[in-house]
């Protein structure tokens, strides 16, 4: 009870501050000087109809780059925090698929690779280590198999599969969602949207896929490679702007093109696409970390 009163006092104090802020605020009837500068300069200088994208990618481009770095750090730290480290001795975990995998390993090494990979993917990290230790004695193939299975983190108790209608509907809808995400990303300089929004749309498509197929795995290694290359190209475009145009992340080193056309506004669509790829990959990785 005492704590509730204290909290109420704190909230009322905040409320007083906020009330003063609301009371002293008058709605703008003209743009502030900086905003006026941006609104008049962005369409002429950059050739981008969507002024918000122009600000986000050019005038505050360094800010956006830093924010993508923050997002990358969050993806990494979430992966670190949710890593499975309950390393228990997995002697009881020896199950039949691995035995069959070893049996085929003696006969046919190529087939055994996929079999052992599938078997190892279904187990936790400790069991994986055990499998690789035992398979290493059997043959040299299984070492490769654990390397393949490393990105595939799977739940031991896999949740119930979604119904057939949901799975089929997901198959029909996913291309549509990804197309819409790509549309939003590359049309960021013409209409509402851009890298962040389109990346979020793509990530929600990935989320739909993961929800409809709880057993499927996301190739996190591939996603991180794509994401790293997008980041490298992002910084490379920034340096190109520094060398060929006015400054870091200046998109004017490419021709401005016709105002309002799809290929226009210098390098803004390129940077926007890279941003969208990066954001989409990072959000997908975050979702996948939470799922496993």
């Amino acid at each position: 009870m005492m704590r509730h009163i204290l909290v109420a006092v704190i909230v009322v104090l905040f409320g007083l501050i906020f009330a003063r802020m609301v009371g002293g605020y008058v709605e703008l009837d003209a743009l502030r000087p900086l905003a006026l500068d941006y609104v008049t300069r962005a369409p002429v200088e950059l050739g981008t109809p969507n002024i918000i994208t122009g600000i986000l990618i050019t005038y505050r481009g360094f800010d956006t780059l830093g924010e993508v770095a923050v997002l990358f750090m969050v993806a990494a730290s979430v992966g670190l925090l949710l890593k499975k480290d309950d390393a228990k001795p997995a002697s009881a975990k020896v199950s039949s698929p691995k035995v069959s995998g070893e049996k085929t390993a003696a006969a046919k090494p190529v087939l055994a690779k996929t079999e052992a990979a599938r078997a190892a993917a279904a187990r936790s990290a400790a069991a994986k280590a055990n499998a690789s230790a035992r398979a290493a004695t059997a043959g040299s193939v299984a070492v490769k198999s654990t390397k393949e299975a490393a990105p595939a983190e799977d739940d031991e108790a896999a949740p119930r599969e979604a119904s057939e209608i949901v799975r089929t509907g997901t198959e029909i809808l996913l291309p549509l969602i990804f197309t819409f995400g790509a549309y939003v990303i590359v049309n960021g300089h013409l209409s509402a949207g851009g890298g962040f929004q389109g990346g979020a749309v793509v990530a929600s498509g990935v989320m739909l896929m993961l929800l409809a197929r709880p057993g499927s795995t996301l190739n996190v290694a591939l996603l991180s490679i794509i994401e790293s290359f997008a980041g490298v190209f992002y910084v490379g475009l920034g340096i190109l702007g520094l060398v060929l145009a006015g400054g870091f992340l200046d998109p004017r080193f490419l021709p401005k093109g016709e105002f309002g056309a799809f290929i226009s506004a210098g390098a803004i669509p390129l940077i926007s696409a890279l941003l969208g790829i990066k954001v989409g990959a990072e959000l997908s990785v975050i979702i996948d970390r939470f799922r496993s």
Partner: protein
Amino acid sequence: MTTGLPVSTILLTTGFLLALIGIWGMLTHRNILRIIIGFAVMDTGLHLVMVATGYITLGTAPIIDGALSKADAASRAIDPIPSALVVTAIVIGLSVTAVMLAYAIRLYAAKKTLSIDAFTESKW
């Protein structure tokens, strides 16, 4: 059906009230997940406040197309800077929420409880 209040004042009030609700929720609850939900609500409220400060009376979106010419933009478009900042703030809000939830999952794995009364090691 007019109240005479400017649009941005209505939104400012709503945003600040939502932030207050979020602060109340963060401070009263003892469950970590409830605290994070309170934080998310506060986040939404502050986004509302920031966007409302950019509104200009009878303004339109700062996208130049058939409805808004280049010459008109300076007088009719809303302030684009708060919008640009809020777009990044939303993504950062999601990141912060994700990190907090990851910590919550780790804390639950350590103590099998979500009440912050159980975590007294760092209390002095």
